[in-house]
């Protein structure tokens, strides 16, 4: 008997989205309060949009090892997004594929269009350092599901941050050209950092300590902060393109299966 006779062929896996079982299936937890759901949506959207930007790097990385690393980071973040979006109780696929860009709650740092590899490194360093500080503090959150997601996420995002930090140092303290590109990426992304601090003031001290440590080793200076903190819900225009691409199959073929 073929174990998969009636499953992978007849289970109605979606042509888009996961088509999988709810990632929180079988977890005993009360429904999320509106506040908890909104918070999980924000953290989930950060992970979903950042994962999408990293997925856009597939086949474009400078080395095979980095291709694999970036895909792994994107997969980890997609996994976190699935759990967090599911925790809202609104259905992960509906949230990922059924909302307009304006309805996303991601921070602008995750939304910015990709640039060169230095841009990827700086963005991932800032994003992962911030997210690790947040998740570290959520490990004892009163909601057992969010606490469990955070405890798993800490292990993953620590790898993401260290990967980005390693490259930041290698490129910042590398050639004149790699240093110049790192400085340009810092200048481009630094104005989005105030969003992070306004959103999670409690993560700021750890963020600043770690980023200052990495930049010093990378022989890079932090740019003077000039950015205005934008609240969640205020987006960069390029988010619309990213969301349109992510949702193109779902929009063209609603409910399609394969």
């Amino acid at each position: 008997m073929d174990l998969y006779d009636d499953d992978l062929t007849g289970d109605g896996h979606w042509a888009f989205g996961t088509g999988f079982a709810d990632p929180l299936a079988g977890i005993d937890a009360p429904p999320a309060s509106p506040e908890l759901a909104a918070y999980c949506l924000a953290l989930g959207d950060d992970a979903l949009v950042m994962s999408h930007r990293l997925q856009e790097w597939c086949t474009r990385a400078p080395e095979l090892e980095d291709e694999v690393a970036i895909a792994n980071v994107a997969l980890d973040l997609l996994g976190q997004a699935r759990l967090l979006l599911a925790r809202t109780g609104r259905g992960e696929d509906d949230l990922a594929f059924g909302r307009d860009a304006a309805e996303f709650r991601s921070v602008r740092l995750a939304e910015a269009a990709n640039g060169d590899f230095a841009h990827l490194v700086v963005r991932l360093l800032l994003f992962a350092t911030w997210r690790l500080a947040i998740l570290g503090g959520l490990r004892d959150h009163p909601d057992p599901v969010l606490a469990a997601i955070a405890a798993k996420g800490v292990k993953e995002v620590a790898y993401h941050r260290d990967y980005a930090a390693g490259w930041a140092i290698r490129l910042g303290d590398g050639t004149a050209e790699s240093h110049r590109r790192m400085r340009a990426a810092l200048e481009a992304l630094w104005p989005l950092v105030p969003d992070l601090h306004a959103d999670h003031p409690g993560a700021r001290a750890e963020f600043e300590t770690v980023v200052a440590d990495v930049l010093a080793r990378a022989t890079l200076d932090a740019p003077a902060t000039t950015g205005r903190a934008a609240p969640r819900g205020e987006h960069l225009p390029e988010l619309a393109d990213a969301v349109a691409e992510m949702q193109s199959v779902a929009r063209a073929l609603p409910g399609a299966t394969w």
Partner: protein
Amino acid sequence: MVTARAVAETVTDPELPQLTLADLGVLRDVAEDAGRVTVWITPTYTGCPAMDAMRDDLVHRLAAAGYPGADVRVVLSPPWTTDWITEAGRRKLAAAGIAPPGPAPRPAAGPVPLALGPTRAAVRCPQCGSGDTEELSRFGATACRALRRCRACGEPFDHVKEI
């Protein structure tokens, strides 16, 4: 009749078919109540795409052994750690050319310190046994593996990273 637990313990990992879910510590518990079987599994990484295949495999294997309609449930806490990989699992990993993990770092309450250098763990080459190996990339073929190379025999190999 074989117990439901014994059946569930024969189900292998979709990515590492040399190992069972029990070897990996992914199979957390099996309960049987009046013919109804409940199985608890935990993901290695949150993005692990193999969870649904594991669920299908468990349901089908149990059904074939006379336990139809098993309920497979996910448990997230405590988070999976490589310390749960059994001794048998470690032997099977090494036999498959994959270096088993060393002891996992203990989770600390405060900020996670930066780890910038190559991983400190002394990892033995699963091909020739040499301890003279180096890390090529912390990310490998699956979420749970890093890529290393043996300086003695020159072979690259996967290493299950300690988490």
